[in-house]
């Protein structure tokens, strides 16, 4: 009996204490809270520092996605780069977990602090490449996959990537 009464008093005291703490609640949407750059919101596709599409359509984001909401098809550009012919994210399924960003070997896919994606029509939650692609490097400014990859593309021949030796002369038997 005494124990229950004490418990009641303790609860009232705790609640009373809250009257003197700062409120965490803000008047959203009039008042916007601060979101860190690495907050996991709407997904974007970024460009490399040279302004070329970063995505190489490797499909790792799609396979990492626990809700399977990413679908894409690879294509090869004239210059030899792999790129997504289409890249689709069904945001009505997306749980903003960021697994795609972790899986991405080229830093192409990134999550942004924007989470306000309400739509009256669910179909509008389906984003195609033109809705996802931004003109910038996003959070990672320096990485350019093709500068480290072995695949030759226009303007970067075999042996021209970082840490690569000149192509071998196969006809030479010199040691």
């Amino acid at each position, binding site marked *: 009996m005494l124990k229950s009464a004490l418990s009641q008093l303790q609860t009232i005291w705790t609640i009373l204490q809250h009257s003197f703490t700062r409120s965490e609640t803000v008047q959203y949407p009039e008042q916007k809270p601060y979101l860190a750059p690495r907050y996991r919101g709407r997904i974007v596709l970024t460009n490399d520092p040279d302004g070329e599409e970063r995505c190489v359509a490797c499909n790792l984001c799609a396979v990492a996605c626990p809700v399977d*909401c990413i679908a894409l098809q690879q294509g090869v550009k004239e210059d030899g780069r792999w790129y997504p012919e289409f890249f*689709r994210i*069904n945001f009505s399924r997306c749980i903003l977990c960021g697994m795609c960003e972790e899986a991405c070997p080229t830093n192409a896919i990134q999550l942004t602090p924007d989470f306000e994606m309400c739509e009256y029509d669910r179909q509008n939650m389906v984003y195609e490449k033109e809705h996802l692609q931004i003109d910038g490097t996003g959070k990672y400014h320096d990485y350019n996959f093709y500068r480290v990859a072995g*695949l*030759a593309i226009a303007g970067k021949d075999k042996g021209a990537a970082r840490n690569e030796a000149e192509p071998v002369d*196969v006809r030479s038997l010199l040691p």
Partner: protein
Amino acid sequence: MNIRIDGVEYPATKDRNLLETCLGLGLNLPYFCWHPAMGSVGACRQCAVLQYPDEEAEQAGRGKLVMACMTPVSDGARFSLETAQARRFRQGIIESLMINHPHDCPVCAEGGECHLQDMTVMVGHRDRRYRGRKRTFRNQYLGPLVHHEMNRCITCYRCTRFYRDYAGGTDLAAQGCHDHIFFGRHEDGVLESEFAGNLVEVCPTGVFTDKHLVHDYTRKWDLQSAPSVCAGCAVGCNTLPGERYGRLKRVHNRFNAEINGYFLCDRGRFGATWVNDERRLDYPGLRGEDGRYNAIDHHGALQRIVSSVERGAVAAVGSPRASVEANFLLRLLAGPARFCPGFSAVEQPLVGEALALLRASRATVPDIATMETADAILVLGEDVSNTAPRIALALRQGVRNRAYAMAAGLKLQDWQDAAIRNLAQDQRCPLFIAATAATRLDPVAARSLRLATPEIARLGLRVADALAGDNSNDYSHDNSHDNPDDHSVHREAAAIADGLRDAKRLLVVSGTGSGDIAVMQAAARVAEAFRDTGREAMLSLVVPEANSLGQALLCEGNGSPDLDALAASAEAGEIDTLLVLENDLYRRAATDQVDRLLANCQRVIALDQLDNPTTSASHLAVPAASVIESEGTLVSLEGRAQRCFPVFPPHAERHPAWVWLLATLKELGREAVSDWHHFDDVTRGCAAAIPALAGIAAAAPDHRFRNHGVRVPRQPPRYSGRTAMRANVSVHEPKQPEDEESPLAFSMEGLNRDQPAALLSYVWAPGWNSNQGLHRFQADVGGPLKGGPAGIRLLRANGGATPLPRHATAAFAVEADEVLLVPRYRIFGSEALSAISPGIRELVRPACIELCAADAERLGLADGDGVQVGDNAAALPLRIDDAMAPGCAGYTAGYRETAGLAPNTRQRLRRVAHFSPPGPTVIGSDRGGRHG
């Protein structure tokens, strides 16, 4: 016998190597250079384990490092896979291999099914410590089928071991020295071997990849696949086509220990992507007054088929490339007497005779694996490298049995590949080839003869006589003894018989490719004569198409009309409605003949996949699903009925032919089909109606089969994008399509393990993402699948109840102004559908006439001239080829331009004035056809 691995006793088989033993026990031991079909060379040093001499050493941890692939297991042997010393060694090897490996995985077509990735993860190598520069190479252009990316090479030598040692190619080799070893050709160019595509699967990493796939790429985990059968030729190789977004992306080998094993030919691997062609029919098309086609829905099409069939006399043309079930239903619709099997008039008796000989012969009808056990081979008149390429690969293995016999004498195990090749050098089992021209097998043949077709038949008969020790028979006409060639045939036959003296298992290969019944009969006689000497004989007769033999079995003995008979009854006004099933008649007979046949029928209904001249001449063109999109049973040249399953549901109004035909029969109110609802009902109905096909229902489990209570999935466990791939159409995801016709599921749900072999829909096991994980599905590493054999043999030898025919053949003499027309097949081009697949399309060369230089001079013709054969309208370019038998003019068979030519007829060649040679034509590309 038992061995101990890491302190645990395991059963083992004597004389196998430790690597395959470990893999068979389900232990993970990394390797690169070993391949179950190619044996061990111990080159990559990746499968190192520790071997202990005795128990004391094992307890003390004192052992020596050995390469598991080079170590035979023996009773009581002690090994350790897990000891730190062995693990460190294996990690060191991978780390060295990875030093020069490019940072390519995201843009590599092997990624996700890469043996190198799997093995790197398996040994636990993660961080790169080497900070030096990576060695690089320039790639080569290796043709439109195989993509080359040499930087990725780990120098395991599997490619050259397959290409040169196994497949007999000469234009791919290891070049350079030390760490500059380069695998490629001496210069850019198309890889010559017809098995080059296997490099894609043999290479443990991404040096050789499928060029078509590289340009329309999908990772293995995203490919939906189902067990299928290659429709490129009659061998019936098992395939695993992979689909994504409704497009066929690639075809991989589906292991079948009795047929294709680990390897496919390039026609099979790259020749199925025609199913993505833009000329595919999507909706039924009804021809209007102006000759244009208007799309109608399937109800409309069905009503029109039914009313056409009801209104008048019906005849039907089936197809030797369509399934047994579709042909059976069509035959049911038209009646046996008005069902033409769809062969050309020349081919029909040939295929019928092939079947009759296979039945009459007491020789074994071998599967491909059995062919590889032959210790003597005779090829009569069939160019297998072009008509049934997988057999050619088997013959190349057959001649190596001499090497294995020599190795057995030295107690060398079969997997000691390098040692056995060194031992045998160029010693091979005898392979004798008699053909009208050079063949690709000539370099491994003991004797290769260039003879006119009748001479090949006579050679065969004489060999049979010589084997029987009987030289009294004279198969030629009286005057032939004056012919000097006759003596040479006699001499050659004696030499061949002599060469077969020590043989114990003779394989005789012939087929319809020679265009002459007598050649096949002679082949059967040789096999019979050899068998009569108390030894084992095998007889393989090659037929032209994927279901040629099934079609022959369906129409056996009931006098089905051939195309000529059909044309005659059309001429007589006896056909109102002609139904054509998956068959371009313009490839079966001369153009004017087909024009007349189609014009003489009031209504022509064509059921086909592609727009071709026959569908363009039809009044109603009905879209059919391809072999990749429908279920069906195909009967291979050895008489094996095999089931293929749809890889993905067909789009639009493409339905399997059996669906169209069953619906038509039901609309017509046919009693026989009233209870048939499923594909399995049709199969069972066919099995019941045609005794020769009674076995086909057992070719695969029926649609009610469940694997441990669940279906077998078509999609791998990590199939991605399911909630986005159709979201552009509607965000409301449809239910996965249900498969009511098979035990497979169009989803990732189910169990891809322990199923019957006919239901193997993909190869994947934990830790084994590449196709090297196949051993997890095999009962015995390199041996048959756990689920037993796939398919069912329909032909059983009748024990010689029917005597083999014994015909005389006239000797062949070169006439002053005539030549003997002989068919010449091409792996790329002679089969109509594969020839329009991207990649192969670039390798198809225009049809031509081939003559040896002496004949050309005799006839006053020169290389590049345009020639007309007899009254055949098409002018063909002439090519001088000294590998042609004298007196013979080879014509490229299987092309529309040569459809009217009759093989083994004497013809005059006429030079055409003002001939401009055709450029590389695209076969079947005449979109719109005659009426477009």
